[in-house]
């Protein structure tokens, strides 16, 4: 699907721009990945004993797949609310740079901060990636409306996926139910691997995978946090050391 040219009358109203945004969910494979992920989250929530309403509320109000999975798996495996909240808070830090980098793409001189609240809420990894792809083709004064359409479209798709996954987990054969639960780690692993831009990202991903089983032996309730901070800091140290070597050579 191609968007209309920048000077097209299609961009004259915000409502039209909103609809073009909503239609753009059909123009990306990431929608399919998101669908698979949220199918898996629906199944995971079912198997961990949460209600369907709870699952849908978590998608609409948290709107960050990894955070939702941390909440479901930690609470489901008996961690306290505080332990779970700490792990989620740390995992959600990554939203901060995303919001910081995305908002300048759609700000105009008339834009007030309150106009950007919904955009900030909708910002998560998929939307962040798509902003860079779509927004250059959207007139600046219609970008907020376009992103509202795209973001709310993605949320709707995920709510549908949650409902299907939750319902299927209750009714599928054990074989297919297991297959659906496996969608989440596979989709996350490959979309994270694809987003790795620098060596630090690759090291963080690989070490994060390898250190978790070790951290899990501590049984601290915040094992994910322990392995994440250690692996991430080592990755950052390697990044620093490498930058130092490059500078010394230059």
């Amino acid at each position, binding site marked *: 699907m191609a968007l209309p040219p920048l000077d097209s009358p299609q961009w004259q109203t915000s409502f039209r721009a909103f609809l073009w945004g909503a239609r753009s969910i059909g123009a990306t*494979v990431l929608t*399919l990945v998101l669908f698979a992920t949220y199918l898996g989250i629906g199944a995971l929530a*079912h198997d961990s004993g949460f*209600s369907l*309403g*709870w699952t849908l509320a978590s998608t609409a*109000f*948290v709107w960050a797949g*990894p*955070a939702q*999975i*941390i*909440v479901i798996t930690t609470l*489901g495996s008996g961690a306290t*609310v505080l332990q*779970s909240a700490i792990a*989620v*808070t*740390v*995992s*959600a*830090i*990554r*939203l*901060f*740079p995303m*919001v*910081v*980098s995305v*908002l300048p793409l759609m700000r105009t001189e008339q834009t007030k*901060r309150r106009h*950007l609240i919904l955009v900030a809420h909708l910002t998560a990894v998929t939307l962040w990636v798509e902003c860079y792809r779509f927004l250059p083709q959207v007139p600046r004064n219609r970008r907020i409306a376009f992103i509202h359409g795209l973001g709310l479209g993605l949320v709707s798709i995920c709510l549908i996926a949650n409902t299907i996954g939750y319902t299927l987990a209750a009714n599928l054969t*054990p*074989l297919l*139910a*297991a*297959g659906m*639960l*496996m*969608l989440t*780690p*596979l989709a*996350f*692993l490959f979309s994270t691997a*694809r987003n790795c831009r620098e060596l630090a990202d690759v090291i*963080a*991903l690989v*070490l*994060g*995978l390898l250190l*978790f089983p070790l*951290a*899990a032996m501590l049984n601290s309730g915040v094992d994910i946090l322990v*392995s*994440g901070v250690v*692996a*991430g*800091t080592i*990755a950052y140290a390697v990044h*620093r050391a490498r930058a130092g070597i490059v500078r010394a050579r230059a």
Partner: protein
Amino acid sequence: MSSFIGDWHALAILFVAGVIPNQIWRMLGLWFGGGIDENSELLVWVRAVATAILAGIIAQIVVQPPGGLASVPDWLRYSSVAAGFVAFMLARKSIFAGVIIGEVVMIAGKYWLG
């Protein structure tokens, strides 16, 4: 209707452990975003830790599987991830190829085991 919502206690926990910890960072980004350099050293570290946490979540589901996934033997879950990764690399980093092959290996393996 009550089975749709479940108990209200669980919803309250969702807000404390899920919604607030996420919205804090988004709203901080909205409020203070203007003054921060996207490529600063602090943000490189933050991104690395966030990526490693995500990796830990992936590992947790595969190593300590929830619900129905626990019926699949360890070696088969690991093989599924490995096969998916090979497909992902061969198909020029196609997420779709990785997920499909990983699923096919796990479901076929489990079906064959009976």
